[in-house]
């Protein structure tokens, strides 16, 4: 019987690195390690942690135990005929892509980085650029094995304990520790993407172009939150399909299944405060906009370049300096609300780049799952930005009033009272949690902060 490595105290942060709390970090290797950690968890409970890409505090548990799941990363089985993959929760999306892409398979949904674990993708029900067509990651999970705080292992699926299955998808790790999951992969014709790019000089053009791009399997827009006047809301829409082998230029044809390259650029441990200020970000946004072609179709790029541009730079979050960054991601059901959100951000004069706009398709049944039909906007801001708290609170109120929501995987500062409005089926989720974890063994800083 193996055991988790002795638990050392560790100061942990989320990807935003704006808060840090101390916990006993336990590197678990087996199902028994997980069960033992849950049943022996002291008063302040336990939470699983993957690769730490959630921005805020869902994978922190101050004063308690944090289970580092990344050693549980084995592929348990792949049916090469059907694309059903069973994999341990700590396996990264990067490892999966490397394992299955040469066989002609690809993950059904990928977020903007491959540096997330399967367990984390389930706990936050991640979405990708194909949400409008394929839904979120949870929609492709056909079953899971969960370690529960009572020391048992439960098999769940949409047919078997449906409530617990869906409460776990998007459940922020609070309804059981995912040990392994079975995921339906998608077949792809190559490791390349055929990408269309369209530059939109103002918001009307951008929204129309993004709506048209619903016809494509993948679509997303970058929007310049800082531009004002006649060019306010300008941006660049990119959409893509997996490239057919016959569409590959001869130069890359023999590299039909080439794997994504590892990051070649890093960010130093220390960066000067205020590197990303209003002037530098305006200049960046201007250059980014000018760099995009007015319109280009059929550009063939490696899959990683389209899906995971930020994986090219390691530790890019450090660019935001010692106080870290905050990401805000909302979904709103209608265009007027989206316009109001964009207006509030622009007039706040908060410096931001990397604002991403996308259209969501139908929601899945997870009560804490974030995606729902409408527009989603995500943007990063340095946590030190002046009057940021007021702006984000205002945005949350607008989003809640319109029946939208805020993504918990990104959140680090939401007003807890808004949660029932943002997640109307919260009580249903709470009832499931009460059933499987009446003593709240599974808990996190996020759970405490939001009184989940």
């Amino acid at each position, binding site marked *: 019987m193996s055991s988790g490595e002795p638990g050392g105290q560790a100061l942990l942060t989320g990807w935003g690195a704006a808060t840090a709390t101390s916990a006993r970090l336990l590197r678990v290797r087996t199902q028994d390690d997980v069960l033992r950690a849950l049943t022996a968890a002291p008063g302040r409970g336990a939470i699983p942690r993957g690769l730490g890409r959630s921005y805020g505090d869902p994978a922190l548990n101050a004063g308690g135990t944090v289970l580092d799941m990344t050693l549980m990363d084995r592929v348990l089985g792949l049916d090469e005929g059907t694309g059903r993959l069973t994999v341990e929760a700590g396996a990264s999306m990067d490892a999966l892509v490397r394992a299955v892409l040469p066989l002609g398979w690809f993950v059904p949904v990928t977020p903007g980085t491959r540096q997330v674990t399967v367990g984390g993708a389930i706990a936050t029900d991640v979405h990708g650029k194909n949400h409008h067509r394929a839904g979120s990651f949870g929609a492709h999970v056909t079953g899971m094995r969960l370690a529960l705080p009572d020391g048992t292992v439960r098999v769940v699926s949409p047919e078997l304990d449906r409530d617990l299955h869906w409460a776990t998808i998007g459940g922020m790790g609070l309804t059981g520790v995912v040990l392994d999951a079975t995921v339906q992969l998608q077949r792809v014709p190559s490791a390349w993407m055929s990408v269309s790019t369209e530059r939109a000089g103002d918001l009307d053009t951008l929204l129309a172009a993004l709506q048209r791009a619903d016809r494509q399997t993948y679509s997303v827009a970058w929007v310049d939150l800082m531009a004002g006047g006649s060019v306010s809301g300008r941006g660049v829409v990119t959409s893509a399909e997996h490239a057919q082998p016959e569409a590959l230029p001869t130069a890359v044809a023999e590299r039909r299944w080439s794997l994504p390259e590892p990051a070649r650029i890093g960010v130093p441990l220390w960066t000067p405060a205020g590197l990303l200020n209003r002037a530098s970000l305006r200049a960046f946004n201007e250059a980014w906009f000018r760099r995009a072609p007015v319109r280009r179709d059929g550009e063939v790029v490696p899959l990683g370049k389209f899906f995971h541009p930020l994986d090219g730079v390691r530790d890019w979050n450090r660019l935001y300096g010692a*106080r870290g960054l905050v990401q805000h991601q909302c979904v709103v059901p209608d265009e007027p609300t989206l316009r109001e959100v964009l207006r509030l951000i622009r007039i706040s004069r908060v410096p931001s780049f990397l604002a991403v706009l996308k259209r969501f398709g139908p929601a899945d049944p997870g009560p804490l799952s974030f995606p729902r039909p409408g527009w989603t906007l995500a943007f990063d801001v340095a946590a030190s930005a002046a009057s940021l708290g007021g702006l984000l609170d205002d945005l949350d109120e607008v989003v809640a009033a319109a029946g939208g929501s805020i993504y918990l995987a990104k959140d680090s500062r939401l007003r807890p009272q808004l949660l029932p409005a943002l997640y109307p089926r919260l009580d249903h989720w709470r009832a499931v949690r009460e059933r499987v974890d009446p003593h709240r063994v599974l808990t996190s800083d996020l759970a405490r902060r939001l009184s989940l």
Partner: protein
Amino acid sequence: MMDALGAPQSLAVLGGTSEIGLAVADRLVRGRCERVGLAGRDAAELEIAADRLVKAGAYDVRTHLFEATDTADHDRLVDALFADGDVDVVLVAFGVLGDQAAMSADPDQAVALAQVNYTATVSLGLRVATALRRQGHGSLVFLSSVAAERGRAANFVYGSSKAGVDTFAQGLGDSLQGTGVHVLVVRPGFVRTRMTAGLPEAPFATTADAVAEAVVDALARRREVVWVPGVLRAVMSGVRHLPRPVFRRLPT
């Protein structure tokens, strides 16, 4: 939990009727702070303070009676403060100014001041630090003073007690590196409060509310030292190096 923008959800004030303590509480409950524990020795005044915080937006305010000099009772107090859940910020705000002339004449008065300002702060500071370590996060705020910088004839007993607090808090903060617990030392100048009523005002005098604003900002930035007003940092770095004969002749 403290959020990413440094806004706490719960607060405990030791010296729960202190004007600076309440000014900090007042600001925090207008933000994310919902739960406040006020510890003091005057039940009636604590209730008035609690009412004021509830009106300002606090959801849950509890009062705790304690005597700073009764260190044997401090474990009980700290347990009570942490009994209702995590405490994100603990502010040590009690203290007395004393009358230097009276203390020079009656050393027992000086001892009493030292016991409140320094001994009780050490007793509670260490106990609170242990509780915060156990919960894995939190900020601990100590009120020092410009008077801690150099001893002067007009208030050296008070100044030395604050110097002790200041040095204690700096070292405590360093000892808590890596534990998730943060210590903030606040060095106000002359603050216009009940404690200083009737005294001649020193240069760069400030208000309890200005101190509170600086404390809330320093908490958000996780700073380790804050001077109020900020200009005192520069002023005192000059004063620190003045030759004694010059320093002695400075106006009060």
